């Protein structure tokens, strides 16, 4: 038996994370009966925007992922969702989350039980072309109204975008936020509460900044968290970052993770090597992280895992990204709707690295990933060539070339984050096992599927 290098311990915050997630999905199911506004939209839809109402929001991507997870436990049931979508004419090369979501509407089946929730309206920021079309299609199917915000993120910092352009982009979003609020009031017949909106915006900034700090804590050796666990933790910010309980959760999580760092409590007691991944994982096949563990390998994160819920601010002096400073930390007072709109627009344009990566790939995204390799002390990379997401797969082969040129062991595998028909476990595992061998790693214990 190989000796363990570090002590390890279960994450205390784990149960709370599960509880909050469950509560959010329960609130969605019960929203109408409790007189709440219920809306649908994507994860990067400036989800603090509807916080001026007593509301619940079904965020599409994690919901699509939850459906794909069925492929593991009940493949026949999963197929009913994709078949419903594909029979309606949504082909396999479209966003896999979207196809699962549309299948759920067409089947009138909520994956957590009961019929698909009756959404009042859809709200989506156009950071991804497919996402904009997703809710347009859903609006056509359901007859529910749809508001699309055109979100053009700032360029990557190394592109040298002028302050004037940034101001114009910021103003463009702020104008649309005001327009969206007026539109939502008209759709719901309810008054928008500026006080709860301001709090929602501040919460959104704080949740995402806290998540970035949690990711930064993972620079430590041994890493206190592995990516498989992080994927269950980041999702709270994806679906509920403007919520008070989510902010409170991330504060507690950060305390716990920093405590693990201070006490050298490891995610993987062997930590033989540290890797990063790229793009969403195949949600129905997270076993691949378990396979890595048997070699003592810890995946310390990904541009995606760090960025979708993370608020990252560029540090010009050190040419790196650190957790974004929140308005509260900067001492900025937010008292009016317009001030909150400006803060929200600025925050997303400036600190949203994933929405930037989806729009502008190239050298900026490569620099971001190289920065992760350096600062998270990474020994290798596994790139999921994700056929289900046009946004996060943008520029992946350029990233692979850059990593290889740098001399970092890098492997690819093909798959789809939410459609198991495009993922081949045998082939992927063969690649991973061979990749481990090329990294000079030996399997420390037997991999047992499903553990």
């Amino acid at each position: 038996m190989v000796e363990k290098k570090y002590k390890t311990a279960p994450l205390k915050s784990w149960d709370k994370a599960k509880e909050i997630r469950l509560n959010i999905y329960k609130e969605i199911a019960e929203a109408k009966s409790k007189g709440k506004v219920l809306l649908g939209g994507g994860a990067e839809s400036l989800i603090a925007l509807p916080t001026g109402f007593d509301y619940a929001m079904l965020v599409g991507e994690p919901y699509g992922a939850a459906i794909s997870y069925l492929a593991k436990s009940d493949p026949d049931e999963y197929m009913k969702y994709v078949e419903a979508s594909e029979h309606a004419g949504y082909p396999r090369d479209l966003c896999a989350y979207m196809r699962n979501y549309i299948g759920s509407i067409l089947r009138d089946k909520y994956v957590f039980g009961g019929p698909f929730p009756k959404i009042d309206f859809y709200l989506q920021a156009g950071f991804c072309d497919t996402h904009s079309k997703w809710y347009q299609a859903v609006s056509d199917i359901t007859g529910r109204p749809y508001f699309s915000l055109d979100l053009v993120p700032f360029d990557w910092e190394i592109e040298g975008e002028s302050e004037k352009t940034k101001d114009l982009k910021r103003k463009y979003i702020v104008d649309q936020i005001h327009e969206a609020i007026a539109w939502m009031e008209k759709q719901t017949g309810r008054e928008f509460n500026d006080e709860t909106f301001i709090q929602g915006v501040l919460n959104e900034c704080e949740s995402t900044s806290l998540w970035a700090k949690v990711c930064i804590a993972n620079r430590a050796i041994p890493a206190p968290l592995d990516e498989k666990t992080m994927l269950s933790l980041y999702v709270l910010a994806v679906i509920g970052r403007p919520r008070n309980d989510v902010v409170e959760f991330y504060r507690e999580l950060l305390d716990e993770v920093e405590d693990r760092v201070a006490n050298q409590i490891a995610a993987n007691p062997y930590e033989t090597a540290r890797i990063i991944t790229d793009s969403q994982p195949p949600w129905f096949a997270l076993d691949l992280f378990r396979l890595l563990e048997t070699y003592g390998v810890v995946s310390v994160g990904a541009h995606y895992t760090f960025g979708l819920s993370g608020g990252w601010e560029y540090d010009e002096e050190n040419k790196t990204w650190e957790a974004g400073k929140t308005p509260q930390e900067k001492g900025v007072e937010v008292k009016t709707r317009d001030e909150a709109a400006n803060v929200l627009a600025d925050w997303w344009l400036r600190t949203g690295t994933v929405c930037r990566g989806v729009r502008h790939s190239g050298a900026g995204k490569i620099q971001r990933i190289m920065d992760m390799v350096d600062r998270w002390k990474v020994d290798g990379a596994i790139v999921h060539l994700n056929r289900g997401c046009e946004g996060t797969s943008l520029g992946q082969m350029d990233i692979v070339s850059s990593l290889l040129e740098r001399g970092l062991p890098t492997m690819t595998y093909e798959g789809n984050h939410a459609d198991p028909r495009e993922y081949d476990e045998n082939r992927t595992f063969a690649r991973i096992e061979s990749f481990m061998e090329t990294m000079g790693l030996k399997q420390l214990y037997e991999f047992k599927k499903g553990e």
Partner: protein
Amino acid sequence: MAEMEEQTIEYWRWDEGNWKNPDMDFKDAEILTAGIDVGSVSSQAVIMADGELFAYGNTRSGYNSRDSASNVMNMALEAVPGLKLEDIHYVVGTGYGRVRVPFANKAITEIACHARGANYMYGPKVRTIMDMGGQDLKAISCDERGKVLNFVMNEKCAAGTGRGMEVMADLLKVPIQKVGEMSFQVEKEPPPVSTTCVLFAKTEALGLLKNGWSVPKVLAAYCSAMAHRIYGVVKTVDVKKEFVITGGCAKNSGIINRLEKELGFEIYKDTKVDTQLAGAIGAALFGKALYEKSKKK
């Protein structure tokens, strides 16, 4: 009638069968191991006696990996009267269906097994291996012990793989064993066809035939395209001149010759062992090492 008969000929069908080393007797061996390579297109079972190639079976894979493994193992055993599966001390499964070999003691990836098998077939000089399988292309760097140092694989597509060549043999009605030789019956090397997708290549080949190209010219264009695609994969590893090819496509001189031109050096071909057996041989050798290790405990 003659036309119907022609349609039933399977031009893609490569040579299947079994073999036993006539100079060896399994009863003399201390350790008998087997390697079962269940690939997406073909399956091989190799039996090794004290680390030497003793017998094998080689056949087409069916849709069920378990059945393919059992069938090919039975095929190998049939070549050796008196030898039973229970007589074999250790079995290693490899290839796409490696985890579904019902009688295997362990599964090992085909990348590791091909490297180990090539080391056996060509000796410790080998440093770069190109495995041209049914649906995979693998470029492997290895050390003098056949240990994998680096590898690159193609992504999902049959273009440039054995299955792609089978499709082309059927389309052009040329027995697959003759494709390489026939592809040289051209006055001038034509430009390669598409390797983006095997279906695109097939469509392009049909178009070329309609435009009056001869069958050898189309074959030359396809072999050239395969060589180019293989080169595209292999150049991403640290290519050394101690270069060998494993897998069924290694038997196609039309590809090998053109690949040599792209590489700028001659590929080692000095082995008497069927190149399709490399993965199963490597698996059987791993089996021997694992069996010996288990006995030491």
